[in-house]
């Protein structure tokens, strides 16, 4: 089994380094992990369960834009100033995860250029993957007549 992010993108040495500062956490279904606009001071790697990313829309239930499962990085706003969440996140099942303190990881990145580059490439890769997937979903390919109007 593989995962896009964590195991394949980071070398064993860097992964071990992150694991040393990870906290093993568990959340029941329905836990709000973060809210849009709040400080992005933590992030998670899902070990089991799923997390839904959502956007609050007045008068409606929060709209789920994507779900993240095993091996996925939850949150990347902690990596880029101003370190504020762009979406909300809620567990949709019992979730086991590694939790990381964002400030600590950023500090490690500054102190060790090699580790910093590895983390940058990992987070950048995750963002790129999500962007690619989102762009394809934007096409609304499964709609009648595929992507958009008949010409």
């Amino acid at each position: 089994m593989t995962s896009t992010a964590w195991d394949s993108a980071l070398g064993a040495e860097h992964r071990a380094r992150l694991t040393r500062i990870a906290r093993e956490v568990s959340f029941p279904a329905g836990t709000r992990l973060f809210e849009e606009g709040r400080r992005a001071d933590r992030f998670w790697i899902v070990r089991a369960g799923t997390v839904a990313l959502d956007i609050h829309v007045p008068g409606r239930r929060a709209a789920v834009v994507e779900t993240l499962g095993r091996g996925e990085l939850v949150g990347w706003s902690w990596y880029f100033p101003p370190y504020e969440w762009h979406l909300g996140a809620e567990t949709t099942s019992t979730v086991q995860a590694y939790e990381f303190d964002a400030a600590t990881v950023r500090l490690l990145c500054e102190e060790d250029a090699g580790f910093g580059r590895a983390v940058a490439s990992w987070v950048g890769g995750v963002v790129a993957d999500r962007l690619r997937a989102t762009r394809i979903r934007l096409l609304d390919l499964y709609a009648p007549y595929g992507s958009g109007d008949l010409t």
Partner: protein
Amino acid sequence: MPDRRTTAVLDLSGLDALVEVLRGQGRTVVGPTVRDGAVVLAELDSARRLPFGWGTEVEAGRYRLVPRADGAAFAHTTGPQSWKAFLHPEREKLWSVDRGADGELSVTEERPPQPSYAFLGVRPCDLRAIAVQDRVLAGGRYPDSGYRERRVGAFLIAAECTEPGATCFCVSMGGGPGADAGFDLALTEVVDADGHRFRVRSGSDAGEEVLAAVPHHPDDPATGTAARSAVDAARERMGRAMPPVDLRALLAGSLEAERWDDVAARCLTCGNCTMVCPTCFCTTTEEVTDLTGDHAERWQRWDSCFDLDFSLLHGGPVRASGRSRYRQWLTHKLSTWYDQFGSSGCVGCGRCITWCPVGIDITEEAAALQAETSAGLPHDDREEPRR
């Protein structure tokens, strides 16, 4: 019977007799004749209908009949039609379906008795084109039964080329003005001080049989030499040539060439090239119902890859641009045809050049692609900003 192959000489009355013998066998004799300012293919009731005394003057986008003083019958180039008009007709009923009162469908396959053709005056390029269509329509897992019946029943009389046109390039496609195989009889027309005559060679048992029934003279050295030298001379007088490169590889490697934009700016996507091409085989289907609504017919008709609907998917046409449709045609003809049917789809007959209303020349396009490719680096690399 061992393969006996006779060479003989027919005079004009022998040619008349040949047509009579074939008609006497119940065959529909089809050959070139002059109509509407062109040499067309039509049923001949007599050899006298052949275009005696007519030559043709062709160029890219141009075709004219010109009278010839020598009275030759086969001194013209290929006309707007090819033999596919008879072997793979433009419109053909596939089946009919009747719906009974109980909703039951009864399907009737359309299998009319096929005519037994004799084609008189098949050019060597067209002999190869027939062989190409044989592979496409009768050589695969699902042979087209109508085509196969017409083809198996057809008696082919080749006419070797002695007057190639300005748009001819069969030699550069691996063919030539002479016919080596694939015919029942092959004629080479000779008009000189010794008279107007046809050197005839049989190429099959059926050809041997017909030749035996036709009054003929024995082969003579003078006629043999004259016939061979006329064909040899024709080989040197091809109006055009494909660039001497591996066309299959050239086209396969040219899918993103800039030349396609250039040719697309000229191409009207009219599909004339596909209609006159002797190997183009594409068809579409039509559903026809009568007023009762309980009788339907399925018809097949020629289609063209230049038609916008040709590549239609439920989301729209795959090949929406003229550029992509011209590229499809040329790439299929010269390259992907090998992948699909084991040979080139081009025999060098030159019809697509002659009958293109804007004079697009397939040999010129291939040469331009070759020039673009051999200019070396792909566009992106050449355009690298200077430091």
